[in-house]
């Protein structure tokens, strides 16, 4: 591939008559405030800007991520490689093939979106045609027949995509949350800001909230009101976050988790409560414990005796043989 090195100034990008005639500056600005600017993408990944001449003779940028890196570095001048005598598509493919790191899911979303926005039509190539050329290189086979599905993901807000990027969400995970109401995502993100949660917990919570909204035909406002009535609100969490130096997420979010579970599995919650009370009533001895399937699907329970001596063992047997105890055990069995 033939090329030459050219020097470029940041200001050149801000003018419509610049060397690069960058009509897509608005989109690039969008990219500047994208997760890609958060420092997660290191400049070592793509360290030089590539340009090529389009069908009208204007020079265009091939690798926008590099632009971000260069802007971030505040360099006045930076070098570019101008690819000579190749089509836009050749340039893109060459650049992607020589790129030595796998792009994250969010980066792929931005990249494809950027390409669709800026090169389709202008380069006389359809979205489908373009995607067909690129999906193998970008490892997007799952979207092979439906590039529009990938495009839909770009509608997610930057805040959400930033979170996905920082937690290294897969495309499948992003696709999953993209189907949910953004209010739900923002609500869980607001919790995450105060008490960071893992990607799997994030997904679990947004899915459960979504299920609750469908289950009760609620709006998000109703859900938030309910949670506040039950003792959980993000303001409370703010207070916690201000007073504690280190967070212990399982404790700080326990009210939320409990209330969410109670709401989603109301019948099971009530049912387990009844069994729990019966078990408490029966096992006054700490040496006898009863465990059951809390999904209430498998009948029966397992009863464990802890004995450190013959006396312990005999005491347990005596308790189990007691008619009053047996009546209580039967009652537990009938409930499960």
């Amino acid at each position: 591939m033939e090329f030459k090195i050219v020097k470029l100034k940041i200001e050149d990008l801000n003018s419509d008559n610049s060397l690069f005639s960058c009509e897509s500056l608005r989109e690039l600005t969008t990219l500047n405030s994208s997760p890609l600017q958060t420092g997660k993408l290191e400049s070592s990944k793509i360290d030089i800007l590539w340009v090529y001449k389009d069908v009208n003779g204007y020079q265009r940028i091939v690798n926008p991520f590099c632009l971000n890196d260069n802007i971030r570095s505040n360099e006045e001048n930076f070098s570019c490689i101008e690819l000579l005598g190749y089509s836009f598509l050749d340039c893109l493919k060459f650049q992607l093939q020589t790129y030595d790191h796998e792009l994250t899911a969010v980066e792929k979303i931005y990249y494809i979106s950027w390409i669709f926005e800026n090169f389709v039509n202008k380069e006389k190539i359809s979205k489908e045609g373009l995607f067909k050329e690129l999906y193998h290189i970008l490892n997007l086979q799952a979207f092979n027949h439906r590039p529009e599905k990938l495009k839909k993901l770009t509608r997610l807000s930057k805040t959400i995509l930033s979170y996905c990027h920082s937690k290294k969400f897969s495309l499948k995970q992003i696709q999953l949350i993209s189907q949910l109401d953004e209010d739900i995502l923002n609500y869980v993100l607001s919790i995450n800001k105060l008490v960071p949660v893992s990607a799997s917990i994030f997904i679990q919570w947004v899915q459960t909230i979504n299920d609750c909204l469908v289950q009760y035909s609620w709006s998000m406002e109703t859900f938030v009101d309910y949670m506040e009535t039950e003792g959980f609100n993000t303001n409370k969490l703010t207070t916690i976050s201000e007073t504690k130096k280190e967070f212990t997420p399982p404790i700080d979010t326990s009210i939320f988790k409990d209330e969410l579970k109670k709401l989603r599995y109301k019948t099971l919650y009530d049912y387990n409560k009844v069994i729990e009370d019966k078990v408490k009533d029966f096992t006054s001895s700490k040496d006898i414990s009863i465990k059951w399937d809390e999904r209430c699907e498998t009948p029966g329970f397992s009863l464990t005796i802890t004995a450190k001596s013959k006396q312990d063992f005999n005491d347990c047997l005596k308790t189990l043989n007691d008619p009053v105890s047996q009546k209580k055990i039967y009652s537990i069995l009938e409930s499960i």
Partner: protein
Amino acid sequence: MTKQPSIPISAETPSLAKKLGKEKATITTKKPIEKDYRKGKKSLYIEEKKGTSFDTCATIGNEYVCCNVKVLKSVTNCPFDCSYCFLQNYLTNGTMSAVGDTESLIEEVKQRLEEQPWRFFRIGTWELGDSLALEKDINQASELIMAFKNLPNAVLELKTKSDCVDTILDLDHGNKTVVSWSINPAKIINEQEHKTATLQKRLAAMKKVEDAGYPIGLHFDPMIYYPEWEADYHELIDQIFDTISPKSLAWVSVGSLRFNPEMKQKMALNFPKSYIHSQEMILGPDGKIRYVKPLRLNMYKSFMKKLNSYLDPQTVLYFCMERFDVWEKILGYSPRSIGHLDYIFADKMRIKYPEMVETMGSLEMYEAHQDS
């Protein structure tokens, strides 16, 4: 009759095309592959039987009781579009198709019957589609009805959500075919069972079939939970028995909504307005998501009480894929095994419809062969 969507038909061979009528059949040489199950519903492909079509309905496990009904995979995909249909997550090729050489299907059934002459076989054609929805175009059910009339120890079950019964009413079925309906309250039919016959049309078709002397089957499956479920299901039972006599029923099954975990997302995507996939459900030991047991028990208890006030004692009432302990709690007994339930069917049908069961195997034989 319900107006079915206009479906272009293509066929694999000239003989199948001829059978369908020259004017509507186009001969193609290869079944087209359609990955989108919905797009696949827009055309009908008639194919030759390939491989084995005879199978057992469900995967037999230890925790949930299966009735051991056999299936004949004679149609694939269906013109209807139920929100809970497992086909949306099952078919690798969504092209709607039907086996055109019915005689090959019958040959396979005959061979299977000969292997176990002591056994009473219930054989349905609804595993991957609707038994009657396409009948006007393919005439498959009619040919099967006529063939089953002469098959010993076997009954054909045609299960449908349609009202496409007119073409089978005058056939001499010899009580060897049960026409059954998968049925739900009008609200569920209207909101979840898209493009199917309305409740009123299904009931009218049921009456026609009863008048034609066919034994009838009812499948309240999947029962679906929603705030007004109890009153609606009770009303449904009343509507059914205002239309047909309980004596016309061969069997009645009851089962609650259940699906594979991966179906949930498909349902949400394909039916964004549907609420049924997000109710209080858990993943059972058989890998299926279903309503939590206390909820199922509550639904069954109320429903069965109402249903039992009508049912004839010789009608087989059973749960589809439900736990042994649920049987015990609701019906006061449970079959001791899958083979036992299969045997109960044979025994009750022998008494109610002597034409169906000529040779009665022992309970031990049914249990010994329950996996085959």
